[in-house]
């Protein structure tokens, strides 16, 4: 099919040249931009740190108020990369693309057991401390016939991520009630913020609520808690900070500087609630009203709504190694870990929080 007119005699040359010149110019611009960005080389040692949402207050302070940390920016620098979740950060650490990252106990253990990823647990961000702290819980609609874990058989249960650490306690509770966690329930993976809507519209029979979404759901009302993790494991460890062994062994001073600032950061965060709230809203671009109702608060009594409280934090960001060992055993018993792990392999002789300079 003829698509042009023959009377344009010299179009090939004119248009062709114009096109080629335009392309060359664009390529030159793109190449120089790429070159310029690569040329900003680092002269002080840099740690590549992965983070995700939320509750890593020490790191948020380091990100948004670096001036509060005398060594940060002068003796060492941090390159922050946000990830979709802890499993992706395990992969990134295994690929050597990250030095330290936020981790969950289970994802870290699986990384060690199945992927051979060797790390040191250097600090802990949040955990639970029954009964005064928040505990991740599963909820149903008020008018639902489900009254307890016994009634979960054959139902559609929500999880934020399949194979997440919070599944362990629920799996044990199901087993105790004669329900096979692999066959007798239908698991659906849906992000935390969508769980509330999913319960209300009936897409899920039982959904899981975490902060800050639990606070929001409880404020709206109409949902009823049926099972909280603390009913199975009272002081579960949720989020810790892990650094790859190769990195720490090669750069002990750098790692020490980082852990010192994590310790200091946690202290500052806990001591200045208002400033911490400001930082958190800056990072997540969410209004203060999302976080204020529960941040750093503890439950007034064991009858008070769970959503009114926050997770527990150690003032020195110290990791609860005993608790972590208990969790390793639990996950092995429930079949989520292929082999037994010893938390001693995860503890460096000197570098762990709280670390003072």
């Amino acid at each position, binding site marked *: *099919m*003829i*698509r*042009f*007119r023959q009377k*344009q005699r010299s*179009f*090939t*040359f004119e*248009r*062709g040249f*114009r*096109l*080629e010149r335009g*392309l060359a110019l*664009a*390529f030159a*611009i*793109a190449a120089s*931009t*790429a070159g310029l*960005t690569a040329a900003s080389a680092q002269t002080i040692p840099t740690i*590549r740190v*992965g983070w995700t*949402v*939320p509750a890593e207050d020490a790191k948020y302070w380091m990100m948004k108020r670096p001036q509060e940390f005398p060594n940060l920016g002068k003796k060492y620098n941090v*390159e*922050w*990369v*946000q*990830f*979709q979740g802890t499993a*992706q950060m395990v*992969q*990134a650490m*295994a*690929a*050597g*693309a*990250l030095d330290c990252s936020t981790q969950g106990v289970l994802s870290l253990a699986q990384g060690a057991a199945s992927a051979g990823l060797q790390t040191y647990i250097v600090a802990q961000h949040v955990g639970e401390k029954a009964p005064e702290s928040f505990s991740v819980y599963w909820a149903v609609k008020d008018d639902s016939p489900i009254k307890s874990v016994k009634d979960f058989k054959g139902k559609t249960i929500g999880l934020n991520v399949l194979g997440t650490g919070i599944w362990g306690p629920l799996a044990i509770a199901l087993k105790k009630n004669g329900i096979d966690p692999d066959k007798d329930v239908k698991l659906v993976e849906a*992000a*935390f*913020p*969508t769980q*509330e*809507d999913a319960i*209300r*519209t009936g897409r899920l029979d039982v959904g899981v609520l975490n902060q*800050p*979404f639990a606070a*929001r759901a409880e404020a709206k009302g109409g949902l009823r808690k049926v099972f909280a993790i603390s009913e199975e494991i009272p002081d579960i460890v949720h989020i810790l900070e892990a650094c790859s062994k190769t990195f720490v062994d090669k750069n002990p001073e750098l790692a020490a500087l980082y852990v010192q600032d994590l310790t200091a950061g946690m202290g500052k965060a806990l001591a200045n609630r208002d400033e911490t709230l400001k930082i958190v809203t800056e990072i*997540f*671009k*969410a209004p203060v009203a*999302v976080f204020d109702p529960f941040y750093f608060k503890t439950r007034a009594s064991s009858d008070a709504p769970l959503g009114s409280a926050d997770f527990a934090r150690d003032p020195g960001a110290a990791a609860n190694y005993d608790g972590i060992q208990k969790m390793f055993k639990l996950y092995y018993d429930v079949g989520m870990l292929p082999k037994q792990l010893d938390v001693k392999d995860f503890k460096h002789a000197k570098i762990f929080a709280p670390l003072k300079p």
Partner: protein
Amino acid sequence: MVLRRFLPALPPLLAFAGILAIWELLSLYFGLDGLPPPSVALRQVPVILTDPQSLFDIVDSLRRMAIGIVLALVFAIPVGLWMGRSRFAAAFFNPLLSVIYPVPKAALMPIIMLWLGVGDASKILVIFLGVTLPLIYHSYQGSRAVEEKLLWSAAAMGMQPPARLARIVLPAALPEILVGCRTALVLGLITMVTSEMIARQTGIGNLVFQSLEMGIYDTVYAMIVIIGALGFILDVLFERLRGWLVGWAEPAQSIIVGST
């Protein structure tokens, strides 16, 4: 009459008003947090656009998209043109492309991160792969449709094969290539955002996915409106460029089948 001058602008405005109306009705019908009405979401747009960090994010993403698109243009168009004229090249590349393209790059991120780290390079690779898809296939198509006689005349006048590709096939295939470019622009914007789904530091995707993960849906939808507006502007600019480049290829009068 003043009204007649503004008449052409009426259908697009009505179309946009229509979308907003449908959106508003849907969100009222479902009443979910996950689908806020436009009246709520649009309020976030000025908030985002006046935040310097967000503007930096947007420019940063566009920079990566530009690099990805330019690399794709440089690589994909010559390969597509070559494939169209040489059965050898087509037989060689077609199966390879059909094996690589359908794989979602998000699943390959760990492998990509091994070599390209978590920074710009891995994202540019994802954008590159997304953009080359329409470019290669449309260039291939455009190149195939070029009249043999043109090439024979050029060869008879002593033009070498690479020169024939550049001087004859490229301009003749240009209309089809530009169809590919339009789709490439669309896919470029989409992959620019999705490339930041797994790991990110700055960028439009960063803004979108962070709000998505925190359940702040009015920001998510405000970002969607901004991206839509960006795409619209880029498409308008592209259409101008296309007219300038291949105005000669348009039929003098457009196809008229009915009265509308």
